């Protein structure tokens, strides 16, 4: 083959055929292509699957329709021409038969056309057998397109719409030339010639209708172009198949999830995603309350993929406090459990972020219990982001306090909208915590109590009710160990006083006997007084569900001797199952040991040592070194400034433990000791990584 020749490949709709006196009939489709001269490139296959060549049913005529299109992206670009003619099956039914011709590269439609006309306008023929490698060649030297009707190029076609030509006015070559002239950025070259109807006419630049009737049908169809079209890079049919596959099966196929996750990384907007879900009936299912397992899975998937719909999902699924799971909720949870993966985590977090303002502002629509259903049920997909959610709230409350302390009221600390009101009222909150009653935060208090994050729960009780219910207070107390501090994120907790509370206070603080008696009497009488006045009406409102409580003794042992008043909620060791830190039950003991004062002090002094050693050799800020250590230990979320908090200690101990396990298998204990192999290795790694990247 000389360099001026191009290869023209082909393939056809696959059928079983039978010869007849006047040609052939189809005995049925094979579901594959036939008469291929090469394997069909994927870009072409996907374009066909997306109905980009499809004429509408019943509209192919004896005079074949011709569709031209450039498909693919980057290096993988093809010029493709489909010739669509009508065939019949043995039962007399009409069938549209496609014969495709294609060439590598995006500039060859003109050549394919010239060759095709030269060859006598080949159309579908099951008896023109072709084999792999038997492509056609066409010498393109010195050939100029012939017979172009010059006036076609003068046609005005500057709109984004397909140009619908007057029927029978222009020939095939001219149709192609007009499309070449009208190349638009978001639509590659595409035209349809002699068509009665097209499945997706809006995907064409130039359409040449077969008749006046076809003109009218196509004109109407173009007017009805969907408002939102698929973004260019999205394989819409693959997305639809994936959604369909996921909603229709109780077993989740990972490859289908991957199709969706990959598409989400591309240029997808919410409106477009909605059209995909509505195409499967999401809107109707919500409106008509259709609760088939398919629809439950569809709406669940939508709540994951389009986080804005999470509230609608919860309302539709009718998650009610204290009720046993119904069939639909069970189907949803089973699906969530099967589909959840780290690749969806960002979307899941977004969902929670959409829910929080609703919880705050529309308590009638959504209850803390239904939010708990998402974050607290281990089968729920959103359980995956529970830890991030708690951490974020906790960090934000800390920032509010830090900001308050430093009197930087105007400084924008990037707070989520739901916590803005706390920041705005911070001076009142921190000066007299019982005077403030930001009532809307009561739902947060209840949610965190359900989540067994009692410190956060207590915080929100304090700011919403001006006091903390005694059971919550006790739990905070137990969770935080024997510290006598009752301050969280700088906020003084005011418990509802009872004898039990008194017992806890007195047990810790050594109080002379002569003080105890009068104190008790004062508490008792004032308790009676307050109780008679408020408790009847208030307590019923603030009562916290206790059915979900469990023993919290495992986090009880921490010893917080630090002077910083803040703590963040103690974490349930059992829930620490993120990807980086999976701690076996057997090893919990070691971690608990590592966060004990005497051991943990070794860790902090080792880190201080590493910092000072490195600073001896190079000028670098402390926090850059700390960040490097965090990076090496794989604990990006550690807040070292608050290392005295139990949760941060735990994180650090776990990370050290994992690091030791990974590199020094048998010596893992969860704390650092100066001069040990682990210590030296960590110091060296920090040094190395600082050398690799020059610090600012």
């Amino acid at each position, binding site marked *: 083959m000389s360099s001026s020749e191009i290869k023209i490949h082909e393939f056809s709709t696959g059928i079983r055929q039978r010869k007849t006196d006047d040609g052939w009939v189809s005995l049925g489709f094979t579901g594959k292509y036939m008469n291929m001269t090469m394997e069909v490139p994927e870009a072409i296959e996907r374009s066909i699957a997306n109905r980009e060549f499809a004429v509408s049913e019943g509209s192919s005529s004896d005079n074949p329709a011709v569709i031209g299109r450039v498909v693919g992206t980057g290096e993988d670009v093809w010029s493709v021409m489909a010739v669509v003619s009508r065939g019949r*099956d043995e039962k007399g039914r*009409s069938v549209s038969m496609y014969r495709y011709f294609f060439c590598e590269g995006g500039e060859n439609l003109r050549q394919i056309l010239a060759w095709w006309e030269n060859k006598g306008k080949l159309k579908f023929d099951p008896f023109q057998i072709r084999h792999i490698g038997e492509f056609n060649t066409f010498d393109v030297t010195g050939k100029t397109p012939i017979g172009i009707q010059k006036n076609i190029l003068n046609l005005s076609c500057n709109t984004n719409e397909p140009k619908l030509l007057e029927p029978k006015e222009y020939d095939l070559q001219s149709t192609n030339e007009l499309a070449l002239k009208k190349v638009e950025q978001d639509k590659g070259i595409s035209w349809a010639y002699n068509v009665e109807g097209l499945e997706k006419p809006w995907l064409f630049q130039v359409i040449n209708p077969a008749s006046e009737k076809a003109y009218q049908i196509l004109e109407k169809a173009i007017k009805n172009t969907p408002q939102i079209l698929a973004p260019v890079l999205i394989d819409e049919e693959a997305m639809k198949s994936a959604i369909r*596959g996921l909603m229709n099966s109780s077993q989740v196929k990972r490859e289908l999830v991957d199709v969706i996750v990959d598409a989400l990384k591309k240029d997808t907007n919410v409106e477009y995603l909605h059209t995909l879900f509505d195409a499967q*009936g999401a809107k109707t299912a919500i409106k008509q309350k259709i609760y088939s397992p398919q*629809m439950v899975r569809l709406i669940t998937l939508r709540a994951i993929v389009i986080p804005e719909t999470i509230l609608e999902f919860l309302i539709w699924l009718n998650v009610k406090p204290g009720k046993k799971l119904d069939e639909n909720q069970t189907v949803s949870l089973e699906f969530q459990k099967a589909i959840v993966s780290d690749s969806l985590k960002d979307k899941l977090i977004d969902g929670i972020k959409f829910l929080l303002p609703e919880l705050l502002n529309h308590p009638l629509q959504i209850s803390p219990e239904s939010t708990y259903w998402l974050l607290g049920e281990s089968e729920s997909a959103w359980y995956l982001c529970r830890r991030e959610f708690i951490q974020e709230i906790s960090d934000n409350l800390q920032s509010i306090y830090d900001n308050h302390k430093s009197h930087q009221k105007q400084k924008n600390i990037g707070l989520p909208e739901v916590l803005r009101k706390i920041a705005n009222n911070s001076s009142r909150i921190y000066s007299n915590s019982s005077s403030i009653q930001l009532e809307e935060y009561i739902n947060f208090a209840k949610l965190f109590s359900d989540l067994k994050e009692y410190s956060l729960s207590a915080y929100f009780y304090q700011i919403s009710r001006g006091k903390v219910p005694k059971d919550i207070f006790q739990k905070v107390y137990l969770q935080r160990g024997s510290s006598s501090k009752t301050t969280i994120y700088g906020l003084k907790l005011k418990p509802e006083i009872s004898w039990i509370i008194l017992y806890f206070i007195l047990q810790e603080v050594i109080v002379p006997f002569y003080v105890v008696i009068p104190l008790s009497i004062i508490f008792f009488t004032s308790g009676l007084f307050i109780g008679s006045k408020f408790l009847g009406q208030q307590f019923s409102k603030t009562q916290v569900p206790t059915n979900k409580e469990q023993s919290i003794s495992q986090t009880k042992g921490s010893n917080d001797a630090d002077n910083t008043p803040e703590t963040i909620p103690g974490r349930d060791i059992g829930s620490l199952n993120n990807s980086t830190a999976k701690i076996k039950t057997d090893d919990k003991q070691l971690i608990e040991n590592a966060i004990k004062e005497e051991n943990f002090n070794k860790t902090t002094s080792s880190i201080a040592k590493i910092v000072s050693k490195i600073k001896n050799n190079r000028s670098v800020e402390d926090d850059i070194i700390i960040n490097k250590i965090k990076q090496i230990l794989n604990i990006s979320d550690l807040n070292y400034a608050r290392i005295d908090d139990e949760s941060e200690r735990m994180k650090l101990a776990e990370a050290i433990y994992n690091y030791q396990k990974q590199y020094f298998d048998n010596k893992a204990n969860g704390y650092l000791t100066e001069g040990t192999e682990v210590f030296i290795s960590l110091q060296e790694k920090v040094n190395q990584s600082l050398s690799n990247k020059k610090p600012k």
Partner: protein
Amino acid sequence: MTELPSSNAVVRVIGDRGAGKTAYMASLARWPNADAKSPVQTIIPIGESGEELVAKAQNILEQGLQLEATRLDANAIDVKDYTLRITLKGQFSWKKSHFRIGSQLVNLNVSCKDYAGEFFTDLLQISGSSQLEDYLEDCLQATGIMFLVDGNSNRKDKEYANALDKFLTALDRTDISVGTRRIALVLTKCEQSELWINRHKASFLADARFPQICSRLKSWQQMGVGSVDYFTCSAFGMLGQNYPEPNMSLISRGPDGVTAVIKDPKRWRPFGLVAPIYWICTGDRHQELDKD
């Protein structure tokens, strides 16, 4: 809007090429010229594939044209899933006399895939093909199978019984979680007079015309893996009350079956379409739907 009692079903429609599967689905979704006395209150197609069915009914059947043959998709996941909500007026169920709905409405939510006939005629013949396995895998989702047979194709009884045999065997080997299924044998094109006169005796008619299919289905039922029932229907229906004639223009008639188009689209009223779906959804026969 309060939630009505509802039943769900996932259905796969199988049968020979030209048995009338797509016409059945399109007529059901379109539900033209509904009879006020019918127990069917409404039929709503859900999602874009449901709307495509309606468009097929309007643009092709209603124009007196013939539907094209359904393409055999390479993968079962690409097969359109037609979702319909059928709302029925309440009825008294004799079988479950405690389950009285009174005048309340009942919803049937059906998700239904119309397999190309080639699945039945060709794929089942090639055992071990990955395409067949893919389709069988998809079939496992189904709580009900509608086996549509052109009532006029009795000469193909043996051929169909063999294919059905292969289908049931293959399904049995694919299904590890032995669930019970319902298989409805639906005789289509019963507007043809010899079928129409016996349309209310579906079981008798099926047995008389397709004895081998019926015997195969009965032995399947005896194995305890599911239940079988028999139905008659016509996607085109009849014209006239006292001297009824089929509402169709014949294209061809042979021992392999009948092909036709609608004669008078304005008076197009199909019959028997909802009864098999009700049975697949509930396990009960609907007295009123059977009188259709």
